[in-house]
């Protein structure tokens, strides 16, 4: 710029830019645009809202608390005593067909997975299969970094340590017989988590990678023993583990446990009596939490969520009402420049 000035001394350039005369679009929100615009937006929103509302209404949800706080509950015995491998069951009845595929969630309340100290306490490099972090886990993992003997914990950190370890089996009671409802444990975690973000160390057999390490304190089995049957679901790639490692946003949350997609139950859970057998391990009463199981089917919008549909309907009708009000105002006062 200095150079330019030297060339043509002091006379300002006569360009649209320097003279602040760039061609400009000056939007005018006149009634002629705004009122139809509002009506259109309003109608569109109402349309979407109706769609959402109906979709959400059609989604079936069955939510049951199995914490066992009440004495009548079968799980009460497990809740108050601290016995290991405590088994309890939960009976329930489905009156109409529960359309498939049915998704089986477990839920926790008053559980602060979004606590900062908790959330930080993990080592993503370790979970990426980095062996140096096996020997020397990140300091973030404190106080779940090493055990009392100074041996590194793998996977370290509070998140991994507190992995949900209740297990469930669902039986349908048909004529006094218990038919096991098959669970599908795949596809419950994010694809990218399973395929990219988490990796087992490339050591064969997997167990050897964990020499000189200890399992997390609260775990009964080491991470390489999570699923003996399926090596692709073992170690850090265990989908239950992956689901747990994705922290929930709010203190009351649910996480996907299994899908029911196979066999006779592909089309859904038929009406009838069911028993859910629970291996009750996870203590929640100490922090006044609750445990739930949720059966739900999903639609294009995900799980049941009335909020969206209602919000769309409300705002859509608000738009329409406002456009009506505006129309009246404009008709009454007839502002001269609105053509």
């Amino acid at each position, binding site marked *: 710029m200095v150079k330019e000035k030297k060339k043509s001394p002091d006379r300002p350039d006569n360009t649209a830019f320097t003279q602040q005369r760039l061609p400009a679009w000056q939007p005018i929100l006149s009634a002629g645009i705004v009122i139809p615009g509002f009506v259109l937006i309003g109608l569109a929103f109402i349309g979407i809202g109706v769609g959402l509302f109906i979709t959400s209404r059609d989604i079936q949800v069955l939510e049951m608390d199995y914490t066992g706080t009440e004495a009548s509950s079968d799980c009460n015995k497990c809740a108050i005593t601290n016995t290991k491998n405590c088994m309890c069951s939960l009976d329930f009845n489905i009156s109409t067909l529960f359309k498939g595929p049915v998704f089986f969630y477990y839920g926790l309340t008053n559980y602060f997975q979004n606590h900062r100290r908790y959330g930080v306490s993990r080592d993503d490099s370790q979970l990426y299969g980095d062996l140096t972090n096996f020997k020397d886990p990140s300091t973030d993992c404190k106080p779940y970094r090493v055990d009392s003997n100074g041996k590194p914990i793998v996977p370290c950190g509070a998140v991994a340590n507190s992995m949900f370890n209740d297990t469930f089996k669902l039986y349908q009671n048909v004529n006094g017989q218990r038919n096991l409802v098959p669970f599908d444990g795949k596809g419950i975690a*994010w694809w990218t988590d399973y395929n990219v973000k988490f990796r087992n160390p490339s050591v064969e057999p997997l167990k050897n990678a964990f020499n000189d390490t200890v399992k997390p304190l609260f775990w009964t089995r080491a991470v390489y023993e999570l699923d003996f049957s399926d090596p692709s679901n073992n170690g850090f790639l265990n989908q239950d583990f992956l689901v747990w490692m994705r922290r929930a946003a709010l203190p009351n949350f649910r996480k996907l446990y299994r899908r029911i997609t196979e066999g006779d139950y592909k089309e859904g859970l038929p009406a009838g009596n069911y028993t859910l057998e629970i291996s009750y391990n996870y203590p929640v009463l100490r922090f006044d939490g609750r445990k739930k199981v949720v059966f739900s089917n999903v639609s294009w919008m995900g799980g049941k969520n009335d909020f969206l549909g209602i*919000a769309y309907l409300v705002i859509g009708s608000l738009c329409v009402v406002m456009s009506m009000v505006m129309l009246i105002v404009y008709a009454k006062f007839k*502002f001269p420049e*609105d053509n």
Partner: protein
Amino acid sequence: MLRRSLNRLLGGDERRVDNRTIYIGHQSFPVNEAFIPPKFCDNRIVSSKYTVWNFLPKNLFEQFRRIANFYFLIIFLVQVIVDTPTSPVTSGLPLFFVITVTAIKQGYEDWLRHKADREVNKSTVKVLENGEETSKESEKIKVGDIVEVTENDTFPCDLILLQSSRDDGTCFVTTASLDGESNHKTHYTVPDIERDLQSLSATIECEQPQPDLYKFNGRMHIYKNDQEPTVRSLGPENLLLKGATLKNTQKICGVAVYTGMETKMALNYQGKSQKRSVVEKSINAFLLVYLCILVSKALVCTTLKYVWQNKPGQDEPWYNEKTQKEKDTNLYLKMFTDFLSFMVLFNFIIPVSMYVTVEMQKFLGSFFITWDKDFFDPEIQEGALVNTSDLNEELGQVEYIFTDKTGTLTQNNMEFIECCIDGFQYKHRGACSELDGFCVTDGPVNKLQQKAGREREELFLRALCLCHTVQVKESTEQARSQGEDCIDQVDGLPVEDEALQPPQEERGFIASSPDEIALVKGAMRYGFTFLGLESKTMKILNRNKDVEMYELLHVLNFDPVRRRMSVIVRSRSGDTLLFCKGADSSIFPRVRQEEVERIRMHVERNATDGYRTLCVAYKHLSEEEYAQADEGLREARLALQDREEKLMAVYNQVETGMNLLGATAVEDRLQEEAAETMEALQGAGMKVWVLTGDKMETAKSTCYACGLFQKRTELLELTVRTLEDGGRKREDRLHELLSEYHKKAVQDAPPVKAGGSRGRFFGKQDYGFIIDGPSLSIVLSSSSESNSNLYKNLFLQICQNCTAVLCCRMAPLQKAQIVKMVKNCKGSPITLSIGDGANDVSMILEAHVGIGIKGKEGRQAVRNSDYAIPKLKHLKKLLLAHGHLYYVRIAHLVQYFFYKNLCFILPQFLYQFFCGYSQQPLYDAAYLTMYNICFTSMPILAYSLFEQHICIEFLLKNANLYSEVAKNAMLRWELFLYWTLLGVFHGLVFFFGVRFLFGNPALQDNGQVFGNWSYGTIVFTVLVFTVTLKLALDTRHWTWINHFVIWGSLAFYVFFSFFWGGIIWPFQKHQRLYFVFANMLSSVSAWLVIILLILLSLLPEILLVVLRKPRGPYARKKKMVQSSEGGLQSPRSPVRPLLMRTFSDESSTVI
């Protein structure tokens, strides 16, 4: 012993001694004193601030002295030291960015300064050493060196002129780079110096360096072969300043007296004091509010955290145990660190980027003023100049305008109109001029045909020819082309024919004041031509084409206090004469009274016509009288202390008992479009005060001509004349008058609605107030404190209710006093001073905004101003268009910045209630950092540079639009509250909208659930879009840049989010956002909620825009009708046709 005491005297106490002694050529003297070379600084100019070594620490220190930077540094340190939720990078990176950019900018500027310094310091100069010419680097010049300078070179240090190649011992100099005055100034050698400088043995005693460019006192002792040393006085006319350029002289020799950082140029180098704009004050106030919000948020969270933790099981559930260290920490310390952590988490509410954006907006925005071609004046080939960009928006807030008259309202383009000799009028113009009809009643005009005695006439003309400091210009090339221009003009305007001089006469003269040239030319018209000054001899070509020679003995310079100047000359016949010219008030008491009456009438009539009048007097000096005067003058000039006072006393003594010869009238025309400009400014609700050193009559007629006073304006006068009316004590009368006027203008008047000038359109009585210098000083410095305050209040109240105020006979300092008084009065209105001369500098510096006119009276005003424009008429666009737009832009910028950071941080605050007050950030660190730097900064910057909510033409046409933003209207607390509430509303919508959505976190059609980072990302996406679209809604003027930047920012956000989430970043400990954004976009619900929340947030805004819209143009149309009514009415002033063409002025600036 003796030596030591001497040492102390000369060396150690050197700094405190008032004088310095310089040995020319470093020679020792045959005096018995021990020669101790005094220590002076070398001639190195150091304008740079830093060196390579101290740059980093010094620059960092400078930068962290800014309160904002310091705040961010503290936040950063807290993040480093305490275990905080966000990594130090989030606040460190922006801070680092800002600091680095500033450091680079300052470093670059300093490097340029180093380069310039080096260029100056390493340039070679010729120094005479032991009789030989040697070349030296400029920085090695020592005080006492004899330096040789050739034509068109600049002086390397402050020199005392010893020798000039011109015969008369003078040299010409321009000081364009010092004060911008490009005319040639004459400097003189010290008399009685031998041609051979080698054998010169002399010392100079002079004062210690001081910054005043126009003051210098010194004394030279010349030793000649054991004779008594001769003493010569040294004044500013002997001093050649560093930075000035030698002209018209082949070479000179001078001795260095001040070197390096002690030169007057270097001493003047300091920057001006910083002026702060109202907007900046508002920013600071808002900042305080936000700081309170920040602290209270942190407090609330800390408190609630500990309340919540007190419930059993919450503090430390089994799944989330504390580390040993945490358990050991003292509870109160924990609380404190928690508090700090929350502060850090929420600190983004006060964005470091706002300062950067505001600075950038101001810096870049000011280019539009320099670029504006409407400000370009083809005459002087210059446009507007911006000296500070800090005050752009202040231009849109002006309530009071203080304007100078000469050169500002008028052109300062002098033209000799008439003179009167012994009471007889000599008029060069055609007799049919309309002026004559007007003046028929005037007694002496009837004697128009009669003439004064020839002798008196010639004496008068000789006086005009001799009593001045005009030089004859030698180079002619440029002048000729100018002369041709003049001919063209003459052809175009035949009426002015006689007014303009023939071209060859036009070129001749150089003077620092245009009246002087006008007078010399006037004399030329009557047959007396000034030929020039050569070695103290003035040559005049008289009517008989004979050359008369006069020896110039003394020049008694002009100064604004005496308001006159004199010369003492000796004619060939041996008569010693004193000629004096000056303002009537300063001449009349010094001449015989019977002569006064004859002239006074003329002078007063001329003044009423708006001419600048000067009286001319002379005096014969007898031999004794002259000898006495000569001795007095020499003595006073040699004085080292109080020289001015002593000189003044001698001047006053000499200039007495003179004979009045006559008076002259010089016309100064109104500036182009002065009346239109004034009308527009008044229409914009500004009050115009004219502050002038001129006579009341002259100034009043100017005010009428510019339409400041109208025919129906009732004038309230508070002048010496009205004060002395009653024959009582002035102060009593003052009280009486003030109360009377107060009653009239304040109490009886209906309350003034916004905009002072509106009243005019509705038939309200207008008042104009006139006060003169002496009366003002009584008002300001009354005998008792309480009275003084009372008077001041009355005065201010009256003035506030007047449409225009005229203050005449003002000294420069009084001008500043008035500005200060208005500035500090109730409501502290924004003041603007505009002027062109050195006498306006004080008020330009005092006012909130100082405007300099690039006029003819040098460049001091321009140098000291904040903005400089070539003509008065440019003020209209500068204020009404540029000022208005800048204000609207920056006000919006400020409000928007606070708003966008409030709705940025509020969800983060709300999230604390859902995460056990654990300082869990809602957004990822990258988002926290980038939000203000990348995602939302450019659109608002573009807006604040290009927005024109009303187009420029419309702003210029409708001056009253200006008053819509007056009084900081867009940064009032109500509006701030509105924006804050809007921010809160948006923050609530963002957070709770997503919160309700997350009632069921299974948002994908495959039943998988979203985690906390998805939550934050959805909120953040809504936030970025809403905030940007909110700005889009506010933008009334969409240039391609706005489009590019707004849509570009949004696109960049999306692109960045994909990129950031698409890679496992090796340097990151936690891969929090891996594929979160992409996953979010695969969920229909997320899309729907984003659209919903954006619309919901903007809905009230759209409604407001729609509902407000019809009112805008509608009201504007009405106003247009109004103002055009006003426009029709205002020119209907009967006084105007006559005064339209006349102009006037100020006898105060004769030189």
